[in-house]
């Protein structure tokens, strides 16, 4: 377990030392700041951060892959994977170390926007319940997004391929499935129980409905389970990929 902590710490500091880490921070905070100033921090508006949470998850579809693309792809490309794999650490430890390091960076990224909460509370009375729910949702969603990014980074030595694959997958999960389920609602008869099942399944797999619950202030254990199991799923896939590389 201490190996995981060592690897995670190193990964976290590497992200802060790399230009990509700062680019990600800048884009995200710039975007959030823009939203905050134009839509939330306006005199006369209700002190509601909901729009930031709903839109944040769309932005993160593109931002998180940038952060995670190098996690393993860079190790393959530079040959440093040889150093890692000939050290007395297991694949599971490498995996968890990388994940926790990147996730830690993500948490810091999201936590930086807490300054807006502070600002709001000085000038208004935001509903702290829904704000906390929103942040919990962001954190959980981030775990899923990072695990997807880590998985694709493990699959290839080209960072750009990892980034694009992650973005497409997250876009699929985040936006398209939601749209697909709405399409089903409009065009397909709901009387058929199988079609109804498909529609519900699609709706469940999409990220947006779950995230919206959190944005509204609802912490539903179904949503927590969704993000939790989704994260575990991609982490497991990443583990399988790492193990399989030993045999090539």
């Amino acid at each position, binding site marked *: 377990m*201490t*190996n995981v902590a*060592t*690897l995670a710490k*190193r990964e976290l500091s*590497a992200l802060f*030392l*790399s230009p990509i880490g700062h680019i990600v921070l800048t884009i995200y905070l710039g975007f959030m700041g823009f939203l905050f100033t134009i839509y939330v921090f306006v005199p006369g508006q209700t002190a509601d951060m909901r729009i930031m949470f709903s839109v944040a998850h769309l932005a993160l579809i593109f931002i998180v892959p940038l952060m995670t693309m190098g996690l393993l792809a860079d190790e393959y490309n*530079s*040959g*440093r994977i*040889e*150093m890692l*794999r*000939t*050290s*007395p*650490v*297991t694949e599971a430890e490498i995996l968890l170390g990388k994940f926790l390091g990147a996730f830690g960076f993500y948490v810091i990224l999201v936590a930086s926007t807490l300054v807006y909460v502070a600002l709001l509370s000085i000038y208004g009375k935001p509903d702290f319940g829904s704000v906390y729910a929103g942040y919990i949702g962001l954190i959980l969603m981030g775990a899923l997004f990072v695990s997807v990014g880590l998985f694709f980074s493990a699959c290839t030595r080209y960072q750009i391929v990892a980034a694009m694959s992650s973005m497409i997958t997250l876009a699929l999960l985040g936006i398209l499935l939601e749209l697909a389920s709405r399409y089903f609602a409009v065009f397909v008869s709901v009387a058929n129980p199988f079609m109804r099942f498909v529609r519900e399944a699609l709706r469940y797999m999409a990220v947006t409905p779950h995230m919206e619950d959190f944005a509204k202030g609802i912490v539903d254990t179904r949503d927590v389970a969704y993000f939790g199991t989704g994260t575990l799923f991609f982490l497991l896939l990443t583990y399988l990929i790492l193990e399989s590389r*030993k*045999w*090539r």
Partner: protein
Amino acid sequence: MSEPAEIVVEHLSKWYGNLRAVDDISFTVPKGAIIGFLGPNGAGKTTTIRMLTCFMAPTSGKAVVAGHDVFFESLKVRENIGYLPENTPLYTEMRVNEYLDFRGKLRGMDRKTRKRRISEVTERCWIADRLHSVIGTLSKGYRQRVGLADALLHNPRVLVLDEPTVGLDPSQIRAARKLIAELAGDHTVLLSTHILQEVEMICQRVIIVARGKIVAQGTPEELKNRAGTGIRVEVRGPADQIQSALHALPGVDGVEIGDASAGTSKFVVLGKMTPELRERIASTIAQRGWNLRELRQEGASLEEFFVRITDPAAAAAA
């Protein structure tokens, strides 16, 4: 002699799809020895090393390093190995001391041991003056030494060094070789290299691989002798008597006469090239009262042997 060997490789093979990179090789390395691992590019040296250091799994066969099987007890093997890969991969954004600290932690060393070992190995590898430099700013020679320091950090039983002196300047090369030679005895060293001079200087035994197989094994002296084409002898004395005397020695196939002028003759002795033969020639000439001027083995270089043994045409004929 009764101690089990430190590295035991039995019928190790590695296939990449249809390509047989390592073909049923077997060898042993005794504890405390320095073994040179030679071969042309693409011979399977790096693949074999990668299997021994648990970077990849063998397709078939068995390897036991420091008493543990590389497949079943891979974690234990990795605890006992210090590995310097060919391209010295390092985290270039870290500082030297940070990097070594990180590696020390991964090897389960506690803080006090880490501090002590880091100062010891950086001293030994001559990088103590650049302890706080960012690795990305160091020259190749320094980076190589950081890699070497990393490999030595936990004082492993076995050291596997893949081309450790490539890219170093001549004085650095000399220093590195001295360092590696000093490591024998306490550590078992497997040195993979192209530089034959290095092998002759440092290694006690040599294994030559080509096309995935082992084509020769032995001490550098033995292999050099196998490449010897003849022993050149210059003697002052009666030419025909000398010739028959030399021919009569065991292991001699023929004696050719070179120039003969003013009583001295040059001969080339052909046959089984051994150091004993040279000794016998010298003592025979001395006993018979002739005057020996020169005794030299021809064509006996490791390079000659290497080129011959790894020549694909020779292998096809064999």
